[in-house]
């Protein structure tokens, strides 16, 4: 553990809202109720690809309680985007609130607002729709076929129309160095194709929104959003109304993991219905609708890597085929990110990425913890393991000799976002992880139970990173990365923070409170974080890319430093000394070395405010100039039942390099949570759609399995390693953590399975069925080999 020189940071502190959550008092979006509130339900397409030929809503209007029914004919004819992460010029505009051309099972055909949810559901049944069914393309491969049906006839990138050739919405081809020469110089070249699955974010809270018309003609929007300003931009654009007409409220979020970077249509539809009806309108997706509206992009990642015979990486080419689903929620960024992140895993002089992002007739996909990076890790960390074996080099050593080091250039979000590495805990993580998992003892020891030789154990590892935010040294033309914070002192000595970063459940707002307390010298409990809204909070981009602490925390520190300076100056006037002679600790101000003669911070604030000295307040604005990688190393030990193909993770080490630890509880929570989600990605999680009809096959928690407590290793068998590092560009030395902790888990499990049974599955998830088939295949080969050897011996004898 790092040595702690802080008063507040590094400790285990209760999250500011934890008591409210543990007593059921905290109101999530779906818990809100307003007088006269209507309930919105969406009529969704039963077809993966169709044109609405006719639609008749007259019977729906007759249902008791129905106030409004809308179709594509009623909504604004504004081609819209779904997110506001990227600069407007690179965002995709490819949908309307409701569609005439529906593009996936579950796409939006009509919407009803009624006084009760039951009435709204009843009305949906009464809407008569005639569809012209079109051929559908459910996978990227099918969508890329020359005869595939065109899924979009129009889309814009920024304000420029996209020339849609088939279903490809964007491509990339970037070269750094001389890749051909790199491969020519290489002693060893490996080429592999890896495939990833389509897990659903599966956050427990479903997408919800309540839009409440105000007396001043404006609209209050309460929604499950990772960015109140982004949401305001999305709704304002799609409805064609000024941004200032909307006031988006910050809510605590029940998970999200990226699903709510984007608006999920119901927010915009409910806003539209609220303006039409003049009444509050509530919408909440069902769990099935959640499965039909978000998830991690499945990718086909082809990796070609060239090494010297001593293991030095000389050239790397990654080619990515990205299935974005029916709408480009993430634009083409996931393609660029997956490809781009493969370049940031190891030091390599010659790099190339190529890729294509493809529309399919499946639900629109979003970000999901890692934004393209779990896919990059899956490819590169499987490949490194195979390369190590072929080169005869220990896999940890191969990784160590190719690590990016402090001072190296780093591509934070693909080659457009360039940063320099200033802190690295990689060596600590590899060394400690290796020891804790028992690498040397366990690598060649596979039979734990001599009476059950069909159960085999193995250890494996994978390492990696995620960026902390998207800041680059120079402003980039790709992604918005800018945060603000306002901090003011109250007359009782409490500090009040007003900012717009979202708390997805990880404790971001509590971390901000810790930063304020640490910088000023206040007690943690003396810091209040307003939930606030877009009316009162200064601009912030959405909370994504593990930037909640690193990026949004920077203006918090800056504002706190400025407020502290004001308090010191006022206290100096009271003590009749210079501001450099006083300090603040535990909400008390005193002259150095005279803590007993203190003035409470409250008295200083009162004196200043009541004497007309000014206001102890500050608004700070920061564009982070780096996106430091938070490095991760995951080690796991698995038990594989070769009779059933079942895999159990029995031991795990999660190691993080997160810079300064702000709240130890929250860091540990991210580590084990990330491990859990990564294990699910490795072993079971996938959403399945019929390849012909596009019908969902497992759109429920009963069909889409999330690992339960029984699937996790015993808490005593999970070791957590936190590297002792300090990030010079971070708020008080902190980096991100939330996404990195998941990224290398799946390949670590894959490498452990390979160590246990000598079998490698290149397409996620590594299900029991796939594994068993592969084990049997290998066993059959072994049997054949044994038979051949036996025959040879017998022939020789004869």
């Amino acid at each position: 553990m790092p040595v702690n020189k802080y008063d507040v940071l590094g400790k285990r502190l209760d999250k500011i809202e934890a008591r409210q959550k543990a007593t059921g008092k905290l109101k999530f979006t779906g818990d809100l109720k307003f007088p006269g509130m209507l309930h919105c339900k969406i009529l969704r397409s039963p077809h993966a690809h169709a044109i609405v030929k006719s639609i008749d809503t007259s019977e729906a209007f007759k249902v008791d309680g129905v106030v409004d029914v809308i179709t594509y004919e009623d909504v604004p004819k504004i081609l819209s985007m779904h997110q506001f992460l990227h600069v407007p010029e690179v965002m995709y505009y490819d949908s309307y609130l409701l569609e005439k051309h529906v593009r996936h099972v579950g796409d939006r055909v009509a919407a009803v607002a009624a006084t009760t949810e039951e009435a709204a559901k009843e009305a949906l049944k009464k809407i008569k729709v005639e569809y012209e069914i079109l051929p559908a393309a459910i996978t990227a491969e099918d969508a890329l076929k020359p005869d595939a049906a065109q899924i979009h006839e129009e889309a814009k990138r920024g304000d420029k129309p996209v020339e849609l050739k088939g279903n490809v919405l964007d491509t990339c081809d970037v070269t750094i160095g001389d890749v051909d020469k790199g491969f020519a110089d290489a002693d060893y070249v490996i080429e592999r194709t890896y495939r990833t699955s389509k897990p659903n974010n599966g956050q427990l809270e479903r997408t919800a929104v309540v839009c409440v018309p105000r007396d001043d003609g404006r609209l209050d929007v309460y929604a499950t959003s990772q960015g109140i300003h982004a949401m305001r931009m999305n709704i304002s654009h799609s409805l064609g109304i000024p941004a200032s007409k909307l006031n988006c409220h910050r809510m605590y979020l029940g998970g999200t993991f990226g699903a709510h970077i984007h608006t999920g249509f119901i927010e915009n539809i409910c806003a539209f219905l609220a303006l039409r009806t003049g009444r509050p309108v509530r919408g909440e997706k069902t769990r099935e609708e959640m499965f039909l509206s978000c998830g991690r992009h499945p990718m086909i990642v082809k990796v070609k890597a060239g090494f010297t015979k001593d293991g030095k990486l000389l050239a790397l080419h990654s080619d990515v085929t990205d299935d974005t689903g029916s709408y480009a929620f993430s634009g083409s960024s996931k393609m660029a990110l997956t490809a781009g992140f493969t370049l940031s895993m190891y030091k390599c002089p010659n790099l190339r990425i190529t890729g294509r992002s493809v529309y399919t007739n499946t639900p629109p996909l979003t970000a999901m913890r890692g934004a393209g990076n779990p896919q990059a890790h899956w490819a590169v960390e499987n490949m490194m393991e195979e390369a190590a074996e072929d080169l005869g080099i220990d896999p940890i050593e191969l990784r160590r000799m190719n690590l990016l080091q402090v001072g190296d250039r780093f591509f934070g979000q693909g080659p457009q976002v360039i940063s320099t590495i200033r802190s690295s805990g990689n060596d600590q993580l590899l060394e400690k992880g290796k020891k804790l998992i028992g690498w040397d003892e366990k690598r060649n020891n596979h039979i734990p139970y001599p009476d059950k030789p069909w159960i085999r154990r193995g250890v494996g590892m994978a390492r990696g990173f995620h960026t902390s935010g998207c800041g680059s040294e120079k402003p980039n033309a790709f992604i918005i990365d800018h945060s603000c914070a306002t901090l003011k002192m109250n007359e009782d000595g409490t500090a009040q923070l007003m900012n717009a970063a979202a708390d997805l459940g990880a404790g971001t707002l509590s971390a901000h409170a810790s930063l304020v307390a640490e910088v000023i010298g206040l007690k943690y409990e003396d810091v209040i974080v307003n939930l606030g809204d877009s009316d009162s909070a200064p601009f912030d981009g959405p909370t994504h890319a593990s930037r909640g602490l690193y990026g949004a925390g920077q203006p918090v520190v800056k504002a706190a430093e400025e407020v502290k300076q004001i308090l010191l100056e006022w206290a100096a006037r009271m003590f009749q000394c210079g501001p450099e002679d006083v300090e603040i600790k535990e909400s008390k101000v005193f002259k150095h070395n005279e803590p007993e003669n203190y003035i409470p911070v409250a008295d200083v604030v009162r004196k200043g405010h009541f004497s007309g000295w000014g206001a102890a307040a500050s608004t700070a604005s920061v564009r982070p100039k780096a996106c430091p990688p938070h490095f991760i190393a995951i080690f796991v030990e698995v038990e594989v039942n070769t009779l059933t193909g079942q895999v159990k993770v029995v031991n795990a080490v999660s190691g993080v390099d997160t810079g300064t630890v702000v709240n130890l509880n929250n860091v540990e929570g991210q580590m084990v949570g990330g491990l859990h989600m990564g294990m699910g990605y490795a072993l079971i999680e996938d959403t399945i759609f019929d390849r012909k009809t596009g019908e969902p096959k497992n759109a429920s928690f009963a069909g889409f399995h999330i690992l339960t407590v029984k699937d996790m290793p015993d808490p005593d068998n999970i070791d957590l390693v936190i590297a002792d590092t300090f990030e010079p560009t971070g708020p008080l030395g902190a980096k991100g953590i939330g996404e990195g902790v998941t990224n290398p888990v799946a390949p670590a499990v894959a490498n452990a399975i390979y160590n246990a049974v000598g079998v490698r599955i290149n397409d996620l998830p590594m299900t029991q069925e796939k594994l068993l088939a592969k084990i049997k295949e290998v066993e059959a080969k072994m049997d054949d080999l044994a038979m051949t050897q036996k025959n040879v011996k017998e022939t020789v004898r004869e």
Partner: protein
Amino acid sequence: MILMSQKYKVNFTVNGDQYERYVEAGETLASVLRVELGLTGTKVGCDRGDCGACTVIMNGKAVKSCIIPALKADGAEIQTIEGVADENGLHPIQQEFVELAAVQCGYCTPGLIMASKALLDENKNPTEEEVREAIGGNICRCTGYEKPVQAILKAAKKLNGECL
């Protein structure tokens, strides 16, 4: 015969308070708690009994209120997350969930607390295996279950008067 559209009278207690309500046959206990009584601490994550976020204690047993017909609650004694803390403050399970940060996003938390409370009400000294069994039907997407398991075991020790 039970008709879907007709309302039927049910009596039940929630957190010690007596209620009389008229409910439809298709109405769930979760819906009555959340919509009729405004007890929104009980969360609904799936509406099909798959995730456990809606777990409440009914007649001493943990049940998934999103698949319990409200009619079945007639005469029942129900406890929800709102009734777990008393005038002396948080229940030890809640206390440990807060202190150990077993609460992350908090959406599954009420369900986890109710499922584990039903266990500890019955079995004051559960093994780790029994704790895992008790919350085996509760999905948590944030914590990886490590801290919730630790919090429940620690709360059990506290309830047994063990000095921690």
